């Protein structure tokens, strides 16, 4: 056996002591006291107007998007959220004493929103956007508390999370909070009007738009310098809302407001994927708040480059009279793929999306204006082709059938390549075929 020199022994000791101190430091940050449970009878009665305001704020806060798995059991949790670190399941936030937040006093509720700490003291995962809610005003938290505590109490125990090692260790979140949790209030800007400032507060503190629309770093925190610079959610590309917005046409305040409440901006955008739940909630919010959100977001989006807008507008004008062009010899190396894509388009898409549209096509969007064709990657387009677009249960809205089983992976690849080239006139997506393989099927 190798002899340990006194010097090596000393070094070993100092490393051990250092580790111990570090562990103690983390433990001190990670340990949060429990807040005493509160019996439902101890809760003050809530005024109906307050509950109503709480309902509208909870709609802006998108609570139901993550906490309602089944509309028949609202806020009972159980929605899986897949992250690079594993899958987190949302929990029951109904006022059930045993499995929900029925024993949470308002200070316990406020601490959860502001600091990501549960009533019993355990740290919550930042899949719950407390890094945004931390900026909420006290009276808004009060109203949301009144709303949550007046919901039906449902018994629904938490589904265990499936996280990769070591992310299952909640004390590690103390380190995350130290690095990324910023309690600073939303900075208001007197250069903008009251509506814009209301929107800034709602977007940053409550609506947490950046949670999906901003890119995240390796530890899952939003990159502050690329605020609203485009992110991802549930395998969809989430469009940038800043100058990098992929939209070929500029948004107007009216259009964006209507879109946020209905999911439809005619001839411009249809909410798909994770955004459908968001607009479903915003439809329940105070319409003035939704307009404020739109007003705020608009200032980040620049105008699209003039040639892009001109091309999209020209395509829009001609789309009612002519078709997307067939693939041509000018397509070079990809000619064969694009030729196949043109055939798939003509067979499967054109009868609703192209000139001579059949009567049942309703308001099918003219594809040169469809934002998904202009995204920096094809994930959203692949999802729309395969899953289609269906309004949420019980809501009216645009509808497109999914082609998942009708088109092979190869046909989806060819179609997406063709739409990118001849619909958006943009450079090919570099890993299209691989992205089609990787994208989860419905």
């Amino acid at each position, binding site marked *: 056996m190798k002899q340990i020199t006194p010097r090596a022994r000393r070094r070993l000791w100092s490393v051990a002591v250092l580790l111990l101190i570090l562990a103690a430091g983390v433990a001190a940050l990670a340990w949060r006291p429990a807040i005493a449970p509160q019996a439902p009878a101890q809760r003050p009665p809530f005024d109906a107007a307050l509950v109503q305001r709480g309902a509208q704020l909870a709609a802006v806060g998108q609570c139901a998007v993550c906490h309602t798995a089944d509309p028949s059991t609202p806020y009972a949790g159980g929605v899986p959220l897949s992250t690079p670190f594993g899958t987190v399941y949302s929990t029951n936030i109904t006022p059930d004493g045993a499995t929900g937040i029925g024993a949470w006093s308002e200070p316990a509720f406020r601490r959860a929103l502001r600091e990501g700490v549960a009533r019993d003291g355990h740290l919550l995962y930042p899949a719950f956007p407390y890094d945004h809610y931390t900026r909420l005003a006290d009276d808004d938290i009060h109203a949301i508390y009144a709303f949550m505590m007046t919901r039906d109490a449902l018994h629904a125990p938490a589904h265990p999370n499936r996280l990769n090692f070591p992310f299952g260790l909640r004390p590690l979140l103390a380190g995350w909070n130290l690095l990324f949790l910023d309690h600073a209030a939303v900075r208001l800007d007197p250069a903008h009007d009251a509506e814009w400032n209301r929107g800034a507060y709602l977007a940053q503190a409550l609506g947490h738009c950046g949670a999906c629309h901003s890119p995240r770093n390796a530890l899952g925190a939003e990159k502050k310098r690329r605020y609203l610079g485009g992110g991802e959610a549930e395998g969809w590309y989430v469009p940038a809302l800043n100058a990098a917005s992929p939209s070929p046409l500029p948004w107007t305040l009216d259009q964006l407001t209507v879109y946020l409440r209905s999911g439809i901006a005619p001839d411009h955008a249809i909410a798909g994927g994770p955004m459908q739940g968001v607009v479903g909630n915003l439809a329940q919010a105070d319409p003035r708040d939704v307009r404020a959100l739109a007003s705020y977001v608009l200032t980040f989006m620049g105008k699209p480059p003039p040639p892009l807008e001109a091309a999209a507008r020209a395509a829009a004008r001609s789309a009612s009279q002519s078709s997307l062009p067939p693939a041509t010899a000018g397509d070079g190396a990809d000619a064969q793929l694009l030729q196949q894509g043109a*055939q*798939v388009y003509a*067979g*499967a898409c054109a009868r609703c999306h192209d000139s001579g549209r059949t009567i049942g096509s309703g308001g099918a969007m003219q594809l040169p204006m469809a934002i998904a064709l202009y995204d920096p990657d094809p994930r959203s387009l692949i999802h729309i082709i395969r899953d289609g677009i269906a309004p949420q249960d019980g809501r009216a809205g645009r509808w497109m*059938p999914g082609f998942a*089983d*009708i088109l092979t992976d190869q046909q989806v690849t060819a179609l997406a390549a063709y739409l990118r080239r001849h619909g958006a006139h943009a450079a090919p997506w570099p890993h299209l075929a691989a992205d089609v393989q990787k994208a989860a099927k419905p």
Partner: protein
Amino acid sequence: MSLYTLNVNGRSEQIEAEPDTPLLYILRDHLKLNGAKFGCGLGQCGACTVIAGEAAVLSCLMPVSVVGQRNVRTVEGLGSPALPGQLQRAFIAEQAAQCGYCIAGMIMRAQALLEKNPAPTDAEIRRHMALNLCRCGTHMRILRAIRRAADAMRGAQ
């Protein structure tokens, strides 16, 4: 017009058609396989459901040009009035058809499920069948028939 060679219910068929002709029209008009029905023509009702490859597809949305080498199967391929298949027997036993318009589509979608998952839970059957509509409202009988067929198929093995 283009010439297509399709494999339908195990037979090779030569068909001359426009590339955007829906598979449903090929089946009904060219091959006289009238099991699959035209319901909405928009992919919203499921009356036109057939199997292509291993998956249930809406044949009203599927242009003939994308079918390729995939084997197409229709309700006629599962059995005949004299010798009905397992699912067909189960639908008869449960008297799951009222007007019958949706039934060929229902059976083909159920067939695709049972081939992939021979022991589905009731929730899995409901989820899988959600796309197919029955305006007479025999859904409960249809679900029972699928359950019966699944049990019978497993028992037979």
